[in-house]
């Protein structure tokens, strides 16, 4: 009973954080940019004539989707209470994915926006910093080794749970393959940001460095959180405490979003960004 009460409290927290708190922060941030840096003073921020309208429309869609997940979350929770359905970890997982979906869609439209900016950038001046970008410029080797250790501990624990018997059809190997895929994906993103073309062609170098740093930190925290989550999840399963699994899943998603989006919003706060590069008379960077 106590676990169920804690689970409902966690779900309410999750609905607030993932469907209201962070979405509202993002909405406020974009609205601030649209109102303080309009096309009349910062035309380079708007690659096409209707960019501002498009951004507003995307923002409305984002708001609608996130608000819908609030209603859905409360409706499903009430349904579970009245029908006395036991909430399991799979339900929490799918609901969390639904909550994360608007963020992914917003990120995709942001990438499309940058692509338009690159296409419209006709400046003949190009700049670069004469400093190599290296992974450990953004994250300390100590922090990195913590992530490696967490992953290592989980892998050893996973093998221990399976009596060091590696079977291709087992759950353990599926989890390990999934972990490997996620980490390869992180590596590709980091490599693409550090060695690839500028996503935003006008972004100042300091802002770009900060952006890369925040993405690297996000992938780092996600990796650590994932290893810790899987370790605790396996431990719970091992001890037969299955009723704690949905609670753990909820806490995990909250941690991921808190560390991921929270870090991103904190390190890339609006007042740190140089918007002068988007003025009409500004030279390209």
């Amino acid at each position, binding site marked *: 009973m106590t676990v169920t009460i804690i689970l409902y409290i966690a779900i309410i927290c999750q609905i607030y954080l993932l469907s209201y708190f962070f979405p509202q922060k993002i909405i406020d941030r974009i609205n601030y940019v649209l109102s303080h840096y309009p096309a009349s003073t910062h035309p380079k921020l708007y690659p096409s004539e209707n960019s501002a309208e498009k951004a507003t429309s995307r923002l409305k869609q984002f708001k609608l989707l996130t608000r819908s997940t609030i209603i859905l979350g409360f409706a499903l929770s009430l349904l579970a209470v009245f029908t006395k359905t036991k909430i399991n970890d799979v339900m929490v997982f799918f609901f969390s994915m639904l909550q994360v979906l608007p963020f992914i869609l917003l990120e995709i439209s942001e990438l499309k926006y940058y692509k338009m900016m690159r296409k419209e950038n006709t400046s003949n001046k190009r700049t670069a910093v*004469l400093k190599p970008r290296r992974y450990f410029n953004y994250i300390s080797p100590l922090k990195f080794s913590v992530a490696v250790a967490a992953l290592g501990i989980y892998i050893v624990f996973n093998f221990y749970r399976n009596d060091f018997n590696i079977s291709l059809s087992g759950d353990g190997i599926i989890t390990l393959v999934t972990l490997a895929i996620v980490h390869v994906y992180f590596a590709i993103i980091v490599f693409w940001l*550090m060695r690839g073309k500028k996503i935003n062609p006008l972004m100042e170098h300091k802002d770009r460095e900060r952006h890369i740093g925040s993405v690297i930190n996000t992938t780092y925290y996600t990796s650590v959180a994932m290893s810790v989550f899987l370790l605790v999840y396996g431990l719970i399963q091992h001890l037969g405490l299955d009723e704690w699994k949905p609670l753990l899943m909820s806490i995990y998603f909250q941690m991921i979003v808190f560390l991921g989006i929270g870090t991103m919003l904190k390190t890339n706060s609006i007042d740190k960004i140089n918007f002068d590069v988007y003025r009409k008379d500004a030279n390209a960077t």
Partner: protein
Amino acid sequence: MEIVIDIDDQTPLFTQLIEQIKKAVQNESLLAGDPLPSIRQLAKDLDLNNKTVAKAYQLLERDQVIVTRGYRGSFIHEHAKINSSRDLNAWISSEITKAIETLKASGATDSEIRIAFTEAMNNDSNEN
């Protein structure tokens, strides 16, 4: 240290790169031992071909302004400040002027000098 490349400028892109790196060394924005970005990173940041940046690095290495240490990357040469103030183009120009003056004093005509110069250059290219 930031460099700016003008893609509409008549000066070749690799020359602009060389000049700016040398300038950065001279005004001590880049010091001996400072690491430089990889060819790929600089080419991507400036939206240039890798070969353009590689050519600039190659010429800077020839002039002993930078030094490449295998997989560790490129660094500013320990004598870069002195070496970057040496103007190889001006030296080439002065040596050729001197040679032309000598040839003309010996009675060679402009076309003979041009033909001989072109032949010498062609022979050198074939040998290389």
